[in-house]
């Protein structure tokens, strides 16, 4: 039961993850993700704003972007 709780709530111990993410890699990606997350949001909205002022055919490109 204790193990099941860990696998449910711990992002690193997922039952289908057969790769070892590695402690150093795991912690670093959390750090990087924390930093780039905000800039990614700005990038997505900047593209949307740019899209408003550019030709309508660029809408398709924006639509292809992953939505947050």
């Amino acid at each position, binding site marked *: 039961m204790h193990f099941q709780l860990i696998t449910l709530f711990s992002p690193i111990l997922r039952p289908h993850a057969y790769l070892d993410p590695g*402690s150093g*890699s795991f912690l670093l990606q959390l750090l990087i993700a924390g930093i780039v997350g905000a800039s990614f949001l700005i990038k997505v909205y900047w593209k949307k704003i740019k899209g408003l002022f550019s030709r309508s055919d660029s809408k398709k490109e924006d639509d292809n972007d992953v939505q947050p």
Partner: protein
Amino acid sequence: MSSHDQRIGASFRDPSGFLFSREGVLYRQVNQFYAEHYDRLMSSKLYAKLVEADLLIPHEEVSVEPEDPALAYKVIKPEPLRFISYPYEWSFSQLQDAALATMAIQKLALESGMLLKDASAYNIQFHHGKPILIDTLSFEIYREGGPWVAYRQYCQHFLAPLALMAHTDVRLSQLLRVYIDGVPLDLAARLLPGRTRYSLGLGTHIHLHARSQKRYADKPITKEQSARKMSKLQFMGLMDSLESTTRKLSWKPSGTEWGDYYTACSSHYSGSAFEHKKQLVKQFLGRIQPTTTWDLGANTGEFSQLAAGMGSYTIAFDIDPAAVEQNYLMGKKKKDNLMLPLVMDFTNPSPALGWQNQERHSLLERAPADALLALALIHHLAISNNVPLPLLAEYFHSLGCWLVIEWVPKEDSQVQKLLASRQDIFTGYHQEGFEAAFGALFEIHEKTAVQDSPRILYLMEKK
């Protein structure tokens, strides 16, 4: 189970399923363990989207007896590939396109609430000229909060070798031959120029990553650390950063060993000789009508294109990464889906690698081709590498069924160049010796002198 039925040697790491062959047909068993994820892949339309975008190998579900019935959920039959190649045989742009395909797949997967649970470069193959994911079981359901478990693998399999090729030396792709799970990041960090530490992408994903790995090498993750979550937005930010770091890398060949071989009709070939050689090769290939052709020493693929143009699936091997790069980019531009350029040194061809030497096949294990082209090659192997002609005949005999081979005699200017700085110990290197060595294993069907040249073109068939 007959002796021809077996699990595939490379397919053992992931408990989600495995590949097996039966009566020469390749199948993939999907295990119960993975059922929920497989069903999501198929029902979420992700599979359809990926196949439509030529990013995932198509498959069909079949009612074939599973190889391990106790574990089985389903058996699928993937569309067969014509040739398996490995990242250490790819040029810079081939590896970069494979990396970007992995990122494109990840993006589409996230849109469907899934993600890639691995990012192995060996899961990508070139199919109809494009990089495509061949492991259908690479997806899992995305649960917000989790990190990307394949982050380290992506950096080792793609980002580190690409950065080394772009910033240090293109030949460092060969490190992938030594390190089966990608280039160790501490090694990449040491080999990369110091300035890359200050680039945002490489500075974090390679240099800082290597330091973090070293720092936490023997330390388990604490409960507090493992409970830290990554929001979806942060996750997508990380993917975006990896993708843009990969995309920004570039490599331009700055002069090649062979790149200008065909230009301006170099001294050893007059224009008419070159045209005549092309005409002869075309005529010989027309007689063979090969399904598969291996051009050994293809340079930028001038002659490979003749074979591909006739509908033959052609692998254009060359030792020079710049020639392979040029050939790949040209094929990509022309949407040539019958040609695969690969880096290969025939004095030391790809060996069998990995666990029990069964994970990655040697070149020989991937043979035979219907036809081999060995044009302007024999002197490099026989003289530069001292391979006796009977051994060369034996090797070609194991690689293909038909052989179009160019005899380059000692009086040829290119052979004279090779002999200029060394003693001529090659007493057996003459036309009679060549015909005796190859005639022992091949039937010689045609033999034509190339106009305005001392060279002779032969058409031979394996005895």
